[in-house]
C-alpha cells in the first residue's frame, strides 16, 4: 500500500509539472495581457513614455519578456522558494490574497456538501427500495431537474423570487449594510443569512447526481444473492436494507465522496460571482478576466493539485473500504 501511494505521488508530481507548463503557456498566449492593458493606459497619459517603452519596462518587471520556457522555469524556481509573486490585479502577495478568500469558499463548500449528503443519500435509498413507485418517480424527476438546471439560471431565479419579489434576502453580497454595527453573534448570523441562497443553489445543483448514483448502486446491491439469502433467513426488511445493503452501497459512495473532498477548496465561480461572495471563485474570475498571470497560475496549479489529490484519495479509499480490492 505504501509503495502504491508513493508511486502515485511521484507520478502526480510529473503530471503536475506538465500541467503547470501547459497552463503557463496558455496564459502567456492570451491575446491581451494585464501588462499590455497597463502599458496602454499609462502611455495615454500626457507627457508619458510611449507604449513600446512602457511594454519593455513592464515586461522586464513582470518576467514576461523571456520566452515561454525560460519564463516557466523562472516561475517554477520562484515557486520552490515559496514565492508565488504579487498579484498584479490586487498588488498584495498571491498567497496572502488566496489565504483571505479560500476559507470562505471552503466553508460554503463544506456546508453544502454535508447538506447534500444528508439529503441525497437517504432519498437515493428510498428511491431504490421503493422502485417504480410514485416516490421513486418523484425523486428521480427532482434529481434530473437538479442536474439539468444551469447554475446561473437557478441562481438568478432564486434572486428574483426571494430577493426582488419577496424581499426576504439581500440581492447579493456577503455582509449586510449594518454588519459593522452588529455584535459578534449578529455578524455571524448576518453572514449566515447571506449564505443561505448560495448554499441552496449549490446543494440543489449537486444532489441530483449523488442521488441517482446512490439509487443505482443500491438497486444493484439489492438484486444480489446475499440479500436474497438474508431475506430468506427471515431478517426484518429494515435490517436487510440498513445493515447489509446500505453498507455495500457505501463502497463506491465513499470513494466518490473522498474524491470530491479536495474540490471543496476550489470555490464555485458562477455562484460566487452571481451572489457577490468574495471567495476564491470570484477572486480568481476577476484575476483571469484581468489577465493577472501570477494569481491565475497559482490558482490553476492549485486546482490541478486538488484534482490529482482527489483521484489519489478516491483510489486509496476504494482499497480501504472494499476488502476484495487489493492494490497490486
Amino acid at each position: 500500500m505504501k509503495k502504491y501511494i508513493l508511486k502515485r505521488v511521484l507520478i502526480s508530481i510529473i503530471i503536475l509539472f506538465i500541467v503547470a507548463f501547459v497552463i503557463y503557456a496558455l496564459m502567456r498566449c492570451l491575446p491581451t495581457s494585464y501588462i499590455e492593458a497597463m502599458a496602454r493606459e499609462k502611455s495615454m497619459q500626457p507627457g508619458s513614455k510611449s507604449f513600446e517603452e512602457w511594454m519593455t519596462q513592464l515586461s522586464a518587471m513582470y518576467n514576461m519578456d523571456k520566452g515561454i520556457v525560460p519564463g516557466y522555469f523562472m516561475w517554477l524556481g520562484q515557486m520552490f522558494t515559496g514565492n508565488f509573486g504579487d498579484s498584479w490585479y490586487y498588488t498584495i502577495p498571491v498567497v496572502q490574497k488566496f489565504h483571505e478568500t479560500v476559507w470562505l469558499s471552503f466553508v460554503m463548500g463544506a456546508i453544502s456538501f454535508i447538506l447534500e449528503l444528508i439529503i441525497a443519500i437517504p432519498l437515493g435509498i428510498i428511491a431504490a427500495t421503493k422502485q417504480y413507485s410514485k416516490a421513486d418517480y418523484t425523486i428521480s424527476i427532482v434529481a434530473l431537474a437538479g442536474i439539468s438546471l444551469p447554475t446561473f439560471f437557478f441562481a438568478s431565479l432564486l434572486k428574483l423570487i426571494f430577493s426582488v419579489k419577496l424581499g426576504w434576502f439581500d440581492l447579493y453580497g456577503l455582509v449586510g449594510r449594518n454588519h459593522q454595527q452588529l455584535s459578534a453573534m449578529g455578524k455571524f448570523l448576518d453572514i449566515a443569512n447571506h449564505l443561505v441562497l448560495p448554499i441552496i443553489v449549490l446543494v440543489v445543483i449537486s444532489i441530483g447526481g449523488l442521488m441517482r448514483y446512490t439509487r443505482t448502486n443500491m438497486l444493484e446491491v439489492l438484486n444480489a444473492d446475499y440479500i436474497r439469502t438474508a431475506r430468506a433467513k427471515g431478517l426484518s426488511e429494515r435490517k436487510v436494507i440498513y445493515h447489509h445493503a446500505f453498507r455495500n452501497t457505501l463502497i463506491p459512495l465513499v470513494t466518490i465522496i473522498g474524491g470530491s473532498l479536495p474540490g471543496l477548496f476550489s470555490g464555485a465561480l458562477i455562484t460566487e460571482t452571481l451572489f457577490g461572495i468574495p471567495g476564491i471563485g470570484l477572486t480568481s474570475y476577476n484575476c483571469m478576466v484581468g489577465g493577472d498571470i501570477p494569481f491565475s497560475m497559482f490558482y490553476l496549479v492549485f486546482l490541478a493539485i486538488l484534482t490529482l489529490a482527489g483521484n489519489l484519495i478516491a483510489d486509496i479509499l476504494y482499497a480501504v473500504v472494499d476488502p476484495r480490492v487489493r492494490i497490486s
Partner: protein
Amino acid sequence: MKKILALVLTGAMCVGLLSACGNGGSSDSSASSASAASSASAVSESSTASTSEAESTPAQRDENTPLVVGYSPFSEKFSPFFASTAYDQDVQGMTQISLLTSDRQGAMIYNGIEGETIEYNGTPYTYYGPADLEIVENEDGTVDYNFTLRDDLVFSDGEPITIDDVIFSMYVLCDPTYDGASTLFSLPIEGMDAYRTGIAKVIDLMQEAGPDNTDFTFWTEDMQKAFWNLENVAPKAIAEEIVKYCVDNGYNEEGDITGAAGNWGFSIPENGTIDDFAEALKEAYAGDMISMIETEAAGSTVADFLPDYEKYEEYVEYAESAPNITGIVKTGDYSMTVKLTEVSATAIYQLATTIAPLHYYGEKDKYDYDNNMFGFTKGDLSHVRSVTTQPMGAGPYKFIKFENGTVYFEANELYYKGCPKTKYINFLETQEADKLNGVTTGTIDITDPSFSNDTVAAIEKANGGELNGDVITVSTVDNLGYGYIGINAKNVSVGGEPGSDASKNLRRAFATVFSVYRELGVRSYYGERADVINYPISNTSWAAPQATDDGYRVAFSVDVDGNDIYTSDMTDEEKYDAALQAALGFFEAAGYTVEDGKLTAAPEGAALEYEVLIPGDGTGDHPSFMILTEARDALAKIGMKLIVTDLTNSSDLWTALDAQEAEMWCAAWGATVDPDMYQIYYSDVANGGANPGGDAYRYGIQDEDLDTMILQARKSLDQSYRKTLYKACLDIIIDWADEIPVYQRQNAIIFSTERVDMDTVTPDITTFYGWMSEIENTVLK
C-alpha cells in the same frame, strides 16, 4: 393511456426545441460575463413586468445606518499616489483633499480660503478649498504659482497640516522611480530635469558611455560586451525574423528578401540578401540597437538578446543629481511657490495635488527642508508603497478596512468643511448586472450602472413610467470624452500626399457619407442618452463650440464647391441621397473617374476599396456600427467598396493603429479637463516631425498652422483667447477630414429615492462636480 402520455411528452420536447428560435440574445450592452448578463436581463425584465413588487424592508433608520454605494470591483490600490482604476481613485479620494478644488465646470478655484461664488445654471454657488493660489506671470516668461494654505487644517488622526505635507506629496510624484498615474514631473518646473537625472537606467548609461568605456562601477564588462555586440548580432537576427514572419504570413515568397524588407519599410536593392537587410536596419537606427529591436522586431524582444535583462533595467545613481527641485520653494509654514520656466495652460490641473500626510506616507524624521530631505530617501518609495492598501488623509471620511468585498468608511469629525452628516459609508463591490436591482431591493442606495437602453427601460418600469420617480432618481452627466470615426491621412490619400487637396477631398467623400448617418446610428444605439456632436471635442469642455456660436457648422455638410448639401425641409432619404451625390463630387475632385454616376478608376495612390475597423465584439455592438453598414451600402451604389471589419478583440484595433496600418477605424477619446490638443494633433511638421504629440501618428495630420496654434494656446492662460484659437484648430481638423466626430454620450448615477434624502445630495451634479463633491451633506431618510 400510455400512448397519449408518450405523445404529449414528445410534443413537449419538440416545443422545447422550437424555443431556441427567436431573436438571438437580447440587445444587452452591459459589460459583464455573458451568463450573468443574459440572466440579469431575464431578471430585470420579469421583475419589472410585475407591478406589485414587495416593499424592500427599510433598514433601521438610526444615525448609524450606513449609506451603501455599489461599485465595480476594486484592485485595492487605494493610494493617492498609485491608484489607477477609477474605482480605486474614488476610494482614496474619499480620504483625501487636494490643494485646490474645482467648480462645476472644471475651472480651478483660486480663493478657496475665503470662498468664491460662481453662478451655474442661474444658481450662485460658493466653493471653498484648503488653499489660495496666486499666479504671477513674470517678464522673463517664467510663471510663479504662489500657494497659501489654511493654517487650521488637520488630518483625520489629528496631526496638523503644514506646507511640508504638500511639498512631500510633490516630491513623491516627481521622484525618478515614481510609476503611478500622475504626470506632475512632465511640467516645465524649474530644476525638475536636474533633479530627475542623476538616476537613470543602467542601459541608458551604457548607451551613453560607449563601447570603449572602462568604468565598470554600475555594470560588468560582460554586460557591456553583450550590449555593444548587439550591433553585430541583432540586425541580422531581426532581419531573418522579419523575413520569416513575412513568408509565414504569406506576404512574401520564400527567399524574397527585398520584398519582405519593403513591406517592413526598408528599401534594399533587387535580389537583396539578409546582410543587405541587416545593413539597412543598422543604418536606419545609427547604433541605437535597443530602439531598433523594440520597433522592428517581429516577435523577439531586447531581453532575447541580452541575458539577465533586468540588470540593464535597474536604476542607479550615477552622478550628482540635483538634491532638490529648485522650482519648488517653501516660503513659510503654510505657503510655497512653484516656479515654471514657461507658461503652461495645463499646469494648474497637475499642480493641485493631493495633500498626503507626511507622517503617514513618509517618515517625519527624514524630512528636513533646509537640508534637502523630503520625507523619504530619493529613489526609494518603498515606505509610500507599503501603505497603499490603507489610505489616510484629511478628506471627509476615514478608511477603516476593506473586507468581505466591502470598503468601510467612517466620518472624519475633523474635516474642514464640517463633520459629515452620515456616520458610516460602505462601498460594496457589485457586478454590473446587479446594480439596478440592488437599488430597488435595498442592498445598495447609490450606484453607477452602465446607462444602456435596458437599464433605462428597467428604471422606468420601477418608477411606474418615468425616469425619475419614487423608487429611483437618475442623475445624468455628459461623459468626459466623445466617440469618433478616424481616418489615417497617410493610408487614405492620393498620390502619397496626405495634405494635398485631392487627398482631403477623398477623405471628405467618406466623411460626408458617414456624417449623414450619424443621427440614425446614435439614436438607435443610445436613444436619448447621447447627442451627435459636430466638432471633435467633448461637450463638457469650455472650448466646445455651441450651436448658438458664430461659425458653428454641422460637420461635413458642404459639397466640394462649398455649398450646403442639406436644406431644412429634406426628408431623411433625400438627405442620404444628397450626401451620396456630394461624395461623388468629392471623389471626382480627388481624381477618380466617374462614369454614369459610378466610380470606375482610382487615381494613383488611392483605391476603390477601403477598410474600416470597428471593435464591436464581433456582433456589431458599437454605436457607430449602423453608420458604417449604412455607409457601406450607400457607397456600394457608386462603386466604392467599404469593408467593415468587426473586431472581436479590441486590442487588435490598437495594434493596427500603432503599426499605422489602419485606414479607418472607430473609437472614443477620454478627455482631460483642459482642451489642450498637443497629445493628439501636434505633428511638429516644421521640424520634420521630430517631436510630435504621443498620439498624433494616428490621424497623421501635418499642418503647420495647426501646430502653431496648438502651441500658442498651450502657453496662454487667457481662456477667451484660447477658446478662439481652439475653434480655429477644430476647423482645420475638420478640414483635413481625418476625424468624424460622432457622439457624446451620458453617464448616469442612480439614487434610491426611498432611502436617500435627495434634498441633501449635491445639487447640479456635473461631469466635473460629482455627487461625492458635497458628500458631507448627504444623508439617508
